[in-house]
Each structure stands twice: as structure tokens, then as C-alpha cells.
């Protein structure tokens, strides 16, 4: 096959994005554990490790720019490089959100007011599905992520309402009011950030659908 080195570079890019996604998801699942456990050491490891993801993101972005500048990819290759370029941005943001969740988990000392773990799991599974769609070029799986996002949004909305309802109906109880409000605030942003992880999964799925089928309906 002609342009062997170019084909190798495309394969390398695909592998790099997949590997970055694996690391991002590892960090995310660890953050979900911290939400349960409140383990401060684990939270700190996640936060410290974010630099690695940021550097990886910049490296892959550079690889994409080099490919465009030096190899001028076209057609499906162009869509693949353009999609990869955008997807690593979403992965980097998911990494940031994992840091946020780890920080919230540490501050909360574990979430007991509302069970966020199933919601967080759904968001993480959406990212896994979106990346599986990307690596296997499976447009149907990409589309399924959008359907699951509606479920996630509904669950996040209900969880937020539960937290606020508890505050209204139960009051602050024996807990100091500032501490109680801080806790409620942290729980609400935790749910918000989980929802954002789902949004990034949808972005990845949208770019993947464009990459596979030249269909930008999900993007715009």
C-alpha cells in the first residue's frame, strides 16, 4: 500500500487517542471511588496525575497538526484526524472533571446524602461507549450514547432535586449552617460535573459519527 509511513502515523494516532482515553477513564473511575470513600490520598493522586493527561493531550494535538500540515489527509482520513483533534480536547476536559470530582469527594468525606455512584457510572459508561465507537468505527454505538445522555440528564435532575428537597424539608439539623450549605453546594456541583462528563461523551460520539458517516447532525 502506498504512503506506508502516513498510514502508520494514522494508526499511531488512533492508538494514542485510545490510550489517552483509557488513562482518562482510569482517572475518572478512581474519582468515582473517591466520591464513595472520601479517601484524600487517592484524591491527591488523581489531581497530581492530571498533568500527565494535559501533556498527552498537547502531544496528540501536535501530532494532528503535523499530520494535517505534512500529510494533507483527505476524505475519511481528514475526518478521522479532525475528529481525533476534537476528541482529545473532550478527554482532557473529562480528566479535569475527574480532578474536580476527586476534590469534591475529599471535601465531602464521601457522599451519603444521595447515591451518586449509579449516575457517575452511567456517565463513565457513556464515555466508554463513545470511545468504543471511535476505536471500532461503530456509528450505531455512537448514536446510542445520545440516547443514554437523556437518561443521565434525567437522573442528574432528580438527584439535584432530592438534595434540595432534603435541605428544605429536613433543614440543617444539628450541623452548622455554613457546613451544611457547603455540603449541599458540593453535592450539587458534583452532579453537575457528572452531567458534564456525559456531555463530553456525547461530543465524542458526535465527532465519531461525523468521522464514520460524514454526518454532522450531532455536532450542530
Amino acid at each position: 500500500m502506498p504512503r506506508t509511513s502516513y498510514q502508520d502515523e494514522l494508526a499511531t494516532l488512533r492508538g494514542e487517542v485510545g490510550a489517552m482515553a483509557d488513562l482518562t477513564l482510569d482517572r475518572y473511575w478512581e474519582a468515582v471511588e473517591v466520591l464513595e470513600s472520601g479517601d484524600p490520598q487517592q484524591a491527591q493522586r488523581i489531581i497530581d496525575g492530571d498533568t500527565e493527561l494535559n501533556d498527552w493531550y498537547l502531544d496528540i494535538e501536535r501530532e494532528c497538526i503535523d499530520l494535517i500540515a505534512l500529510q494533507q489527509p483527505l476524505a475519511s482520513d481528514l475526518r478521522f484526524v479532525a475528529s481525533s483533534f476534537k476528541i482529545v480536547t473532550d478527554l482532557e476536559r473529562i480528566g479535569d472533571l475527574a480532578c474536580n470530582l476527586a476534590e469534591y469527594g475529599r471535601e465531602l468525606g464521601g457522599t451519603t446524602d444521595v447515591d451518586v455512584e449509579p449516575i457517575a457510572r452511567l456517565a463513565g459508561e457513556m464515555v466508554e461507549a463513545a470511545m468504543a465507537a471511535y476505536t471500532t468505527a461503530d456509528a450505531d454505538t455512537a448514536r446510542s450514547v445520545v440516547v443514554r445522555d437523556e437518561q443521565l440528564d434525567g437522573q442528574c435532575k432528580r438527584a439535584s432535586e432530592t438534595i434540595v428537597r432534603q435541605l428544605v424539608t429536613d433543614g440543617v439539623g444539628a450541623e452548622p449552617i455554613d457546613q451544611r450549605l457547603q455540603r449541599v453546594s458540593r453535592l450539587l456541583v458534583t452532579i453537575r460535573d457528572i452531567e458534564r462528563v456525559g456531555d463530553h461523551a456525547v461530543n465524542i460520539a458526535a465527532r465519531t459519527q461525523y468521522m464514520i458517516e460524514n454526518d454532522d447532525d450531532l455536532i450542530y
Partner: protein
Amino acid sequence: MSQPTTDSATEETAESDDRLIETEVSVSETVTQPAGASTIIDVGDLSVYYHDDQALRSVSMEIPERQVTALIGPSGCGKSTFLRCLNRMNDLIDAARVDGTVELLGQNVYDDDVDPVALRRRIGMVFQEPNPFPKSIYDNVAYGLRVQGKADDIDLDAEVERALRSAALWDEVKDQLDKSGLELSGGQQQRLCIARAIAPDPEVILMDEPASALDPVATSKIEDLIDDLAEEYTVIIVTHNMQQAARISDKTAVFLTGGELVEFDDTQTIFENPADPRVEDYITGKFG
């Protein structure tokens, strides 16, 4: 028409062997035809043979007016053969035989009553290597008008200036019109040839890899010029440079080995999402 017709015929004949194919198959192709501007050239079921070898296979294509249409494909695919058919340059190749029709605004250019020389005034041509005559810049541009016998009826100076301005060369040569065209740089020589081609005010300009012998700066000037020319003329360009086709053309036709027109569509579609997997493989470099 001006002299490049003859100059290039020799050159093109020498190249024709590269375009021969080994097998003969009669195929009627179905090709997508992009919607848009009105059609200036309507090619119907066009086949070309060099002796017994078929170099172009039943090509049908509607070429839009005042747009840039790029013809791309690997060496030997028939794109230059196709280009030469449009103004009957293949008449100059003894071994060539043409079947099918090429209608310029409704008239088949291969009808017996069509004068090929007059046709080439309406469909001018610019070749790969700049080939100015060993004459002054002025005389290069005026040549076609003089051959037509128009020189006494028109303001020749004004027409030369118009052509040089249209070819984006006027500002660079207006004070040295008596200088030999051969003393210009390669890029300027090519723009002089374009000025010479447009001086008789053709409707269509054919270009066969017009920038392949030029450096990037001269190439970018030619590309800008092609963009400007398309406001007034229909431009059909053969290029091996796919990025150039992507940059400058409105429509792209992809020929593949064997003289088959595989896909013809808006340039953006061809380079972002071609319908035919063979085109996808070709433009992404997997063809081979």
C-alpha cells in the same frame, strides 16, 4: 488561434504513449453530475482510441460555465486526453480516434462544419511548460488577434493591456512590452501564455498542469489568477496536485486508470466525502 497549438501538439504526441492502456472494454459509465451553474460543455459518451488502445471510456460530463473544473487522476488515466478532446487537439495526433460528442453551447465540436482553428479561439489552452514565442511581450499577446485579422479593427494596444491585466501581469511588464517574452521568469512566462490564450476572448480556457513547473510563489499567483479568470471564463484544469485541485476548483472529476471517469461532483464533496470507494482510496493515497 495562436501558435501554442502546434508547439504543444508535438509535445503532447510524445506524451501520449504514457496514456495508452492495454485492454479494451466498452463501458457506458454512469457518472454523477453536480447541479449548479448552466452547462457550457456537454460531453456525451466520449471514447478515445490511440490505434487500438482505448484511452478514454464512454465519458459523459456536463461542465459548468464560469467555474473551475479540475480533472485529477493517476498518470495514464486519460485526463489529459479528455482535455485535448474538448478543443480537438487530438485531431493533431494521427493515431487518435474519437467517438462520442462534445457540445459547446449545444453544437457538437466534432461536426464536419466546425473549423478546429476557429474552435480553438473559443476554447484556448495553456500548457504545462510555459512556451512564449521568441517575440516581444506585446507581440506574444497580440499574436492571436493578428492571426484572426482583427488587428486593424480593434484598439490592439487596449486589447493587449486588457489581456495582460486579466493575466495579472500588466503591472509587472507595462514598462517593458518590447522585451522578449523569453526573458521573463517562469511564472511570468506562464502568465504571459495565459494572457496570450485569453487575448482572443475565448469562452473556455483549458489548462494542462499549468503550475507544475513553477515554484510555490509563482504557483500561488497562477492559482489566484485562475480564481479571477473564472469570473469571466470557464476554466478546466488538469492537475496532479490534489491540494491544488482542492484549493482552486468548484467541481472535480476523478479519472482512474483505464480512462474511466469514476466520479464528478462538487470539489468539497470529492475531497471530504467521495461516493466511490476507489476515489476515496486514490485521494487518501491507498490507491496503487
